[in-house]
C-alpha cells in the first residue's frame, strides 16, 4: 500500500465514521453501531492502528457536535459506546495477541526454568567444589559421572580426564585399586557403607573416611554410586601422637617402677655391707681399735642407716604416686588410735596424753590414709619429744564442707615464715641434731592428700605446737 492510498483509505473511513456517528447520535440505532463495527474492521484490515482509529473518532465527535446543539451532553456516552464498538475488532485482535503472548510467555517460563536448573546445577557444583571433601559419582559400570574440584586437586587429575572412565583407565594403579576395592561392594550390594580408605598421594599416604551410598532411580534400582570422603589424616596423626604419648608415659611409668625396684634392691645392698662390716669391725676387731676409731665407725653406721631410711621414704613416696586408689569407708578415729598405740609401744618410756575424737569416718584409700596418719601423728610424737607434758590430738570439724581433719600437738612447732617449704621433698625445718628425719614424710602426706583431691596445710608457732589440717576433696562424690 502506497502512502497516497493509505491517506485515501483513512479519509474514506473518517468520512464514513462522521456519517455513522451523526446517525447514531440522532437515532441510537443498532444499524449505526453495526456500521461502527464494520468501519473498525475495515480500518484494521487496511493497517490503520488503534491510536489512529481513536483520532478519527475524536475528529468525528468534533464534526458531529455542532449539529447536536439541542442535546450536546448526551453525545459523550453515545460517542463512548460508538468508539467501543469501532474498536472491538482491534480488541479481538489484541486478545489474540495476548493469547499468543501468553503462549510466548510459556516458552519464556520454560527458558526461565532451564536457566533455574542451570543455576541450581552451577550452585551445587560450586558448593561441591568449595567443600574440602572429595566427592564423586560413578555409574553402575564404575565410570565417573561427576567429580568435584577437591577430587581433581587431591588426585592431581582434570575433570575431563576422568569423566566417562573407570578408575583403572583414569587413575594410577595403586590409587585405582584402593578406590575400587571399597566402591565395588556398595555398587554390588546397593547398600550404603562407610570405609576408611588410605590412598597414596604425592605427600605420602592419606587416610579418608568415606561415606558411600547408591543413588536410586524412580523404581528404586541403584544406578550410581556417590562417595563423600573426608581427609582424617591429621586426626589420625593426632590420635597416633596421643597414643604414642600415652605409651611413652606408660613406659616411663614402667621405667620408674623398675627404677624404684632397682633402688630398693641395689642401693640397699651396699648399705647393708657398709653397716654390716662396720659392725663386724667393731665386734671382731674391737680389741685392735681405739675409742676414736670406734666412734668413727659408729658415724659410718649411723649414716648408712640414715640413708636406708631415706631410700625407704623415697620408695614409699613413689609407691604412693603409682598405686591405684582403692576407696572405701575408713574409720580415721580407729586408725589414729592404732597408730598412737604403735608409737607408744615403740617409745614406752614417754608419757603422752592422746585425745582422739570418736566417730571420724572418711571416704578414701585405707592404706594411704593410714600412711597420712602415721606421718602426721609420728611427727607430732617426734616434735613433742622435749615437752614435759606432751599432748597429741586427732579430730575433725564435721560441720564444714569439705570436712577438715586435723592433728594437733603442743610440741616444738615451727616458724610460719617457712611454712611453704614444709611439704617439699627433703625439706626440713629442724636440724638433724634437734630432731632426726628424712624430709620425705610430709611430701608423702601431701601426695596422698592431693591424690584424694584434698588439701593439706599447717598452722604453728615456735614452741607452742603445730596443727596440721587436711581435707579429702569431695568425699560424697567418691562414694
Amino acid at each position, binding site marked *: 500500500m502506497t502512502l497516497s492510498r493509505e491517506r485515501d483509505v483513512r479519509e474514506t473511513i473518517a468520512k464514513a465514521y462522521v456519517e455513522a456517528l451523526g446517525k447514531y447520535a440522532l437515532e441510537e440505532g443498532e444499524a449505526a453501531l453495526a456500521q461502527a463495527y464494520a468501519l473498525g474492521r475495515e480500518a484494521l484490515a487496511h493497517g490503520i492502528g488503534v491510536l489512529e482509529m481513536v483520532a478519527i473518532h475524536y475528529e468525528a465527535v468534533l464534526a458531529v457536535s455542532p449539529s447536536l446543539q439541542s442535546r450536546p451532553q448526551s453525545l459523550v456516552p453515545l460517542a463512548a459506546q460508538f468508539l467501543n464498538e469501532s474498536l472491538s475488532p482491534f480488541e479481538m485482535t489484541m486478545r489474540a495477541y495476548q493469547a499468543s503472548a501468553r503462549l510466548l510467555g510459556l516458552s519464556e517460563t520454560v527458558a526461565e526454568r532451564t536457566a533455574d536448573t542451570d543455576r541450581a546445577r552451577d550452585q551445587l557444583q560450586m558448593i561441591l567444589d568449595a567443600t574440602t571433601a572429595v566427592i564423586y559419582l560413578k555409574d553402575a559400570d564404575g565410570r565417573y559421572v561427576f567429580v568435584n574440584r577437591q577430587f581433581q586437586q587431591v588426585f592431581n587429575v582434570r575433570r575431563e580426564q576422568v569423566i566417562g572412565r573407570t578408575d583403572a583407565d583414569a587413575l594410577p594403579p595403586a590409587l585405582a585399586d584402593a578406590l575400587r576395592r571399597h566402591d565395588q561392594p556398595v555398587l554390588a550390594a546397593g547398600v550404603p557403607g562407610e570405609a576408611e580408605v588410605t590412598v597414596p598421594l604425592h605427600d605420602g599416604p592419606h587416610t579418608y573416611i568415606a561415606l558411600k551410598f547408591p543413588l536410586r532411580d524412580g523404581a528404586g534400582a541403584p544406578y550410581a554410586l556417590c562417595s563423600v570422603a573426608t581427609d582424617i589424616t591429621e586426626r589420625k596423626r593426632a590420635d597416633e601422637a596421643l597414643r604414642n604419648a600415652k605409651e611413652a608415659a606408660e613406659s616411663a611409668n614402667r621405667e620408674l617402677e623398675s627404677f624404684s*625396684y632397682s633402688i630398693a634392691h641395689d642401693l640397699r645392698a651396699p648399705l647393708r655391707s657398709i*653397716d*654390716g662390716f662396720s659392725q*663386724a669391725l667393731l665386734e671382731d676387731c674391737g680389741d685392735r681399735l681405739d675409742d676414736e676409731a670406734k666412734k668413727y665407725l659408729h658415724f659410718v653406721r649411723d649414716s648408712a*642407716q640414715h640413708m636406708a631410711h631415706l631410700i625407704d621414704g623415697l620408695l614409699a613416696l613413689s609407691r604412693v604416686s603409682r598405686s591405684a586408689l582403692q576407696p572405701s569407708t575408713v574409720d580415721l578415729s580407729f586408725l589414729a588410735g592404732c597408730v598412737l598405740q604403735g608409737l607408744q609401744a615403740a617409745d614406752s618410756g614417754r608419757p603422752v596424753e592422746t585425745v582422739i575424737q570418736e566417730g571420724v569416718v572418711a571416704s578414701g584409700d585405707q592404706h594411704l590414709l593410714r600412711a597420712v596418719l602415721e606421718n602426721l601423728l609420728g611427727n607430732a610424737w617426734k616434735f613433742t619429744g622435749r615437752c614435759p607434758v606432751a599432748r597429741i590430738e586427732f579430730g575433725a570439724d564435721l560441720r564444714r564442707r569439705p570436712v577438715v581433719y586435723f592433728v594437733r600437738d603442743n610440741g616444738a612447732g615451727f616458724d610460719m615464715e617457712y611454712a611453704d617449704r614444709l611439704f617439699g621433698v627433703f625439706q626440713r625445718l629442724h636440724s638433724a641434731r634437734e630432731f632426726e628425719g628424712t624430709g620425705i614424710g610430709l611430701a608423702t602426706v601431701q601426695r596422698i592428700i592431693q591424690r584424694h583431691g584434698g588439701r593439706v596445710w599447717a598452722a604453728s608457732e615456735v614452741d607452742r605446737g603445730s596443727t596440721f589440717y587436711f581435707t579429702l576433696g569431695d568425699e560424697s562424690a567418691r562414694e
Partner: protein
Amino acid sequence: MRDKVMLLVEDDPNDEALTLRALAKSRIGTPVIVVRDGAAALDYLFARGEYAARDAAQLPAVMFLDLKLPKIDGFEVLRRVRADERTRLLPIVILTSSNEDRDRLEGYDLGANSYVRKPVESTEFAAAVGQLGLYWLRLNEPAPLWGR
C-alpha cells in the same frame, strides 16, 4: 640332723659373708652350701652339672633364696622346685632386699614358706639370719619327703 646342710643362694659376696658370719655367730654348726645363681641352685637340688655326683635324695634342711639372681631368678627357681615331685616340699625362705607387695605376693603364690626382708641395720640383720637358722634347723619339723 647331723647330715643336714643349708643351701644359701646369694650372688652378692658381701651379703654372703655377712650371712655366713651371722650364722656362725648363732652357733648352729650346720654346714652351709653357697651357690651364686639360680641355675647353680637347681643343679645342686637336682644333682646335675657340677653337682652330678651328689645324691639328689639328700635335700638341704632349708634353702635361703635371694630373688634377684643371675641366669635364673629366684621366682623361677621357686617355680621349678615346687613343680618337681622330689623338691616340692623343700622349706624355702626368700631372703631379699625387696619389700614390694607384688614380690611378697608372688613369692607366697609360688609356694615360699617364708619371706624375710634383709634389714640394713647390721645387728638386726645378724639377729634375723640367726633366728632363721635356729628356727628352720632346730625347731621346724620338715615334711617326711622320702618316707611315703
